[in-house]
């Protein structure tokens, strides 16, 4: 590898210097930088700057490529290049020199080289491969500063694929005597964990060591890793809770060296990090939370100095207290703290106080009530951010009573807000609130009108879509629907009579759809048609909106309404250059003349009937067969046409665009190969056919045709209604009526002090209307969480969607299931007398159980005679064993195993694991490895007294192909018996662990349908089979495979036979086939079930085993490498 780098680096300057003008470089570099900066600051226009920088870049280019430039001069040049890049000009020619400088320079020059590399390149840049060797060298350097530099650059950017190359060296640094090195190594490993978690899985216990490091700095660095890992999987680190608490206790208690104090606060950043970790660990976990209470209390108490950083700690403390299992004393203190934040005069603290309030208000709405006056003040604060945070808080406390006031406040903010991001966010929230809590029709329509006007083209497209859906689906009462739609029509008509030119396009589209669908509720269709026609005439109307308008007119044109208007429109757009508009105009013309056809195509008020689309276009069959008979060519789908075209093009007319360096690096990245000469050649040959194929497809110009006459083509008449739309102009607003708000105010229940000055009184009034409903009942309706509030616009439950929603979802906790499984199948045995009659009773129950499903299904054949010989033996052992609590497991397994279908006799099933459990049904599963497949067997045990019907199991997996073995689908489970179903699994996409997720739905007699979800995990090794090949075959296959990975593994033993021993372990554990061992090298082969081979080449090298895996299947080598590593470690 190093050879190539060396060659490239030595060759490049000479290549580049071909166009350089002179080789002589004598320069006073520092002044050059000064000149450049001075030059830039004196500039007056962007254009001048461009010229100056281009000049500068040319001169840098000249000098870097000259062979006479010393590394010292190079360093200065790099700083100048960094400058140009920072100003946004590309200096890509200098990238390779930055890498070179990092490699060849010493001390500060090296440092600048690394700096330039980290600023110039990003993680996926191909030149980074050239840096690997340098990093390797520096990691092994005796100079501590060089090691530090290497670690820093590694944590900033490192190609993911090359991590294995340096991983052992970085790991080694965890034991380095200098703590700064250890600390940086921990952070570098953290970076690896982020970009390639699989690679560092084996060093988790080293992280633990770092957490216990004697240097607090190293420990602090490891907290980053733990924060991340705990966030991903809080359950896995519960055992560390007390350690973190102890650490925090020590930190808070001032046990750390004085160096760690900041403004006499002990290690504040460490405290913050620890508090965040504790919050995650204590969430929904009472026992963990209880360990924390004391230290949290102490943290609150200690953080009393009035300094910014103590507030940072307090804030985290408060958040933690509100996240973990609540304790009233602490909550009280935390509430007081939040009060201090909110009331603080420091604006930063006020902001955080509001954030904290927003966070806690769902649990403790009274707190918002306490600070209502402050919140009102914040609503009028000059800082928009504070205002927005306040609105966010109000959004969380909205209920049916205060909705109109809060929405009014939000709209007020929206009208002055300029920031797109906030607008989009807030518009969505207003729409959500309006849909949920609207007090009446008028308010709803008017609010939504405002939302559409303000949101304009920026808002999420699902807002208008769901609004239209709501209108068309209607609610429970027909009369209400009519009123709502009529009001919508009326208000839109009056909007169009005003200044429609100022409305955003998307709003106009909504308006035209509503008018088209529901104008029939009004009398004068003529007027509506004229208004719509006016829209068409406006120049600001986009052509997309125009086609919506034309659609609306088509819907309205029946019954002789507006004949003249329609004729005019048809004339204008019937010859439009826009084909879509022209088509719509033609439709309009035909349908307006043929009333009968119109009634069939566009039935009135049928917005909610689902459309039936004949996607196979079977009604055209007659036409097609006629055409074929007349000699027409049969239809070919586009992809087939493309393929044929590509095939007919035998000669590649594309230029060979590949030059050596590019192809080398690109293919080596794609194929995950190290840049050796071998991989260059194979990459090149592998790439060329691919390119010519691509060339073939790109030259085809079928796009234009497809777009207009695509599969969706003509049929999509009604579709524009559903499509997301784009609008251009935002414009002023129709303000929603205050009526709702006033009505609420009169209803308000919050007591208001009477004697207050006028402005104060206004605020009080506002407060009472904002916080109404918060005080009255303790269970507040927050964000629709409370079911008791009647939602005005609750959607009708429709169609098949309703049944899963109505059925109970039972989530299962994997932790508790083992015990229930034991309970389920073992209770018979445990409760009965253990000694003499145990075997008898269990035998009885087993046979009873196994007869059950056989009789019930008649499908899964359980042969009692065959399985029973195993049983008495098990039972005998169990009965003889002195400790009875071992029994249930063996018994349960034995009893379930007796239910395995007969074809599996002789195979060794995996342990039977419980999937999920509830009162009546228990689901358990195991898998069995067969020669060419893996079978998953699911046992369903019915512990209730009644039969359970309509069991439906649906299994799915991202990585696996799951198919039900025919005839084994279970439909019912008789009471107290076991039903069995069987699936066969094949691998779709290799992954370290594969998972089958499933859902079972079933129905108990006289109960609602229920469903349960479960998942079953199995390692990839279950799918690995030995592959018997000869050494020659192996050699031939090796060259063909494109995906590979390399890694060094630890040897099992040090002796002479270490290679054989290690391979033996792998053979046994992973089911591999050892093809041959020659000296220090060994070749091994395996396959993934039937036909996905993977080859392994091992070599003893300096006391470790270098393993190289190759396969035609992407990801397979990586996954297998992981399992090899695990197998050797466990051993």
């Amino acid at each position, binding site marked *: 590898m190093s050879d190539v780098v060396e060659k490239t680096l030595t060759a490049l300057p000479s290549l580049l210097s071909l166009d350089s003008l002179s080789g002589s470089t004598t320069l006073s570099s520092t002044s050059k*930088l000064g000149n450049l900066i001075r030059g830039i*600051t004196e500039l007056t226009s962007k254009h001048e700057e461009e010229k100056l920088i281009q000049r500068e870049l040319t001169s840098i280019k000249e000098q870097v490529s000259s062979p006479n430039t010393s590394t010292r001069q190079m360093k200065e040049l790099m700083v100048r290049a960094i400058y140009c890049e920072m100003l946004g000009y590309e200096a890509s020619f200098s990238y390779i020199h930055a890498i070179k400088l990092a490699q060849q320079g010493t001390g500060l020059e090296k440092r600048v080289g690394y700096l330039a590399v980290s600023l110039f390149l990003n993680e*996926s840049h191909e030149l980074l491969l050239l840096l690997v060797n340098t990093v390797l060298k520096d990691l092994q350097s005796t100079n501590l500063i060089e090691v530090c530099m290497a670690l820093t650059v590694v*944590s900033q950017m490192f190609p993911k694929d090359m991590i294995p190359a340096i991983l052992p060296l970085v790991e080694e640094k965890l034991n380095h005597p200098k703590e700064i090195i250890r600390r*940086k190594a921990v952070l570098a490993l*953290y970076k690896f964990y982020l970009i390639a978690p699989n690679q560092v899985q084996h060093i988790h216990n080293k992280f633990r060591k770092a957490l216990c490091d004697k240097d607090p700095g190293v420990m602090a660095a490891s907290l*980053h890793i733990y924060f991340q890992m705990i966030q991903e999987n809080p359950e896995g680190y519960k055992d560390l809770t007390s350690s973190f608490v102890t650490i925090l206790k020590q930190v808070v208690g001032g046990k750390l060296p004085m160096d760690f104090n900041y403004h006499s606060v002990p290690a504040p950043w460490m405290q913050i990090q620890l508090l965040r970790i504790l919050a995650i660990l204590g969430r929904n976990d009472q026992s963990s939370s209880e360990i924390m209470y004391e230290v949290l209390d102490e943290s609150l108490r200690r953080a009393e100095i009035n300094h*910014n950083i103590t507030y940072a700690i307090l804030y985290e403390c408060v958040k933690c207290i509100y996240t973990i299992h609540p304790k009233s004393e602490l909550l009280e203190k935390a509430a007081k703290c939040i009060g201090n934040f909110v009331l603080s005069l420091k604006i*930063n603290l006020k902001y955080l106080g509001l954030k904290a309030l927003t966070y806690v208000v769902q649990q403790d709405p009274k707190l918002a009530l306490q600070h209502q006056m402050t919140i009102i003040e914040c609503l009028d604060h000059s800082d928009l951010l504070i205002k927005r945070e306040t609105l966010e808080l109000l959004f969380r406390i909205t209920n049916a009573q205060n909705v109109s006031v809060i929405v009014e406040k939000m709209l007020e903010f929206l009208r002055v807000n300029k920031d797109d991001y906030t607008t989009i966010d807030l518009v969505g929230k207003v729409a959500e609130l309006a849909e949920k809590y609207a007090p009446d029709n008028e308010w709803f329509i008017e609010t939504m009108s405002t939302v559409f006007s303000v949101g304009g083209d920026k808002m999420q497209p699902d807002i208008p879509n769901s609004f239209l859906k709501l209108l068309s689906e209607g609610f429970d009462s027909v009369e209400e629907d009519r009123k709502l739609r009529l009001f919508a029509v009326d208000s839109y008509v009056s909007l169009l009579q005003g200044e429609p030119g100022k409305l955003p396009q998307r709003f106009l589209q909504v308006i035209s759809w509503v008018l088209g669908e529901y104008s029939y509720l009004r009398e004068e269709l003529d007027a509506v048609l004229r208004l719509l026609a006016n829209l068409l005439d406006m120049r600001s109307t986009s052509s997309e909106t125009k086609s919506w308008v034309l659609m609306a007119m088509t819907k309205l044109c029946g019954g002789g309404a507006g004949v003249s208007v329609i004729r005019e429109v048809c004339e204008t757009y019937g010859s439009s250059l826009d084909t879509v508009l022209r088509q719509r105009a033609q439709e309009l013309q035909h349908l307006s003349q043929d009333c009968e056809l119109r009634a069939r195509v566009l039935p009135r008020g049928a917005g909610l009937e689902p459309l039936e689309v004949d996607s196979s276009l079977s009604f055209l069959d007659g036409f097609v067969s006629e055409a074929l008979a007349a000699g027409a060519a049969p239809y070919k789908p586009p992809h087939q046409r493309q393929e044929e075209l590509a095939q007919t093009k035998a000669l590649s007319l594309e230029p060979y665009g590949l030059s050596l360096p590019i192809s080398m690096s690109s293919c080596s990245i794609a194929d995950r190969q190290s840049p050796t000469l071998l991989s260059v050649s194979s990459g090149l040959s592998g790439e060329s056919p691919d390119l010519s194929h691509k060339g073939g497809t790109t030259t085809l110009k079928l796009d234009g045709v497809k777009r207009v006459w695509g599969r969706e083509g003509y049929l999509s008449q009604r579709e524009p209604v559903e499509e997301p739309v784009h609008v251009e102009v935002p414009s002023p607003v129709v303000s929603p009526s205050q009526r709702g708000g006033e009505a609420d105010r009169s209803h308000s229940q919050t007591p208001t002090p009477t004697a207050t000055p006028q402005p104060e009184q206004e605020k009080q009034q506002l407060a009472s209307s904002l916080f109404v409903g918060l005080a009255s009942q303790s269970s507040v309706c927050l964000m629709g969480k409370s079911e008791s509030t009647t939602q005005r616009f609750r959607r009708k439950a429709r169609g098949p969607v309703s049944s899963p929603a109505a059925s109970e979802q039972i989530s299962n906790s994997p932790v508790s299931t083992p015990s229930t499984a034991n309970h389920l199948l073992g209770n018979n045995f445990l409760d009965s007398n253990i000694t003499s009659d145990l075997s008898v009773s269990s035998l009885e129950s087993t046979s009873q159980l196994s007869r059950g499903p056989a009789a019930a299904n008649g499908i899964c054949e359980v042969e009692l005679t065959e399985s029973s010989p195993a049983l008495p033996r098990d039972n005998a052992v169990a009965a003889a064993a002195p400790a009875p609590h071992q029994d249930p497991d063996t018994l349960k397994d034995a009893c379930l195993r007796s239910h395995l279908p007969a074809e599996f006799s002789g195979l060794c099933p995996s342990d039977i694991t419980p999937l999920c459990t509830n009162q009546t049904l228990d689901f358990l599963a195991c898998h069995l490895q067969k020669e060419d497949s893996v079978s998953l067997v699911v046992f369903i045990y019915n512990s209730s007294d009644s039969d359970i019907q309509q069991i439906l199991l649906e299994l799915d997996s991202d990585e696996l192909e799951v198919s039900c073995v025919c005839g084994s689908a279970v439909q019912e489970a008789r009471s107290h018996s076991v039903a069995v179903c069987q699936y066969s699994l094949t691998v779709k996409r290799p992954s370290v662990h594969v998972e089958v997720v499933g859902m079972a739905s079933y129905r108990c007699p006289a109960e609602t349908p229920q469903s349960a979800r479960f998942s079953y995990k199995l390692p990839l090794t279950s799918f690995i089979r030995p592959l018997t090949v000869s050494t020659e075959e192996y050699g031939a296959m090796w060259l063909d495979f494109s995906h590979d990975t390399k890694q060094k593994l630890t040897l099992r033993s040090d002796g002479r036979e270490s290679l054989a021993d290690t391979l033996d372990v792998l053979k046994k554990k992973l089911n591999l086939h050892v093809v041959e061992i020659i000296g220090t090298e060994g070749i091994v082969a395996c396959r993934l079930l039937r036909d996905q081979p993977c080859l392994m080449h091992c070599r003893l090298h300096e006391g470790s085993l270098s393993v190289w895996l190759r396969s035609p299947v992407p990801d397979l080598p990586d996954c297998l490498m992981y399992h090899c590593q695990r197998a050797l470690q466990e051993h």
Partner: protein
Amino acid sequence: MLTEPGIASLAALAYTNFPSVIPIYVMTSEDTEQQIIRETFHLVSKRDENVCNFLEGGMLIGGSDYRLIYRHYATLYFVFCVDSSESELGILDLIQVFVETLDKCFENVCELDLIFHVDKVHNILAEMVMGGMVLETNMNEIITQVDSQNKMEKSELDEKMW
């Protein structure tokens, strides 16, 4: 757009909209980088003195999870872009530590120092924040590290003079 946790980037911006220090810890393309800097300067420079030091999720900096936290010193703005895994007030003080450290290293730091010694500024920052994670917050410790490197440079210079 920005995906990794911790501190996504830091930019020190002068009134002239002339960026001085821009380590970006998260992968972005060159174009968006420039756009982010422009946008950030635009946002930060128009904020009053009496508003809070935080700015929330613009589209450009990666949405609601990211915030800008800035401090204003004379002609310079120091802006950190962080995700929700960092404490707002903690970062504010981190900026303070950074500036104090710069002040010590350059003896009364000014805008020109940052511009002329961009590499040194980067070195100091690399000792504080590594790959987007806070590494060291103790000013003395940072200075010790930076000094040890400077010493190495000096000894090199001496060698060359010999």
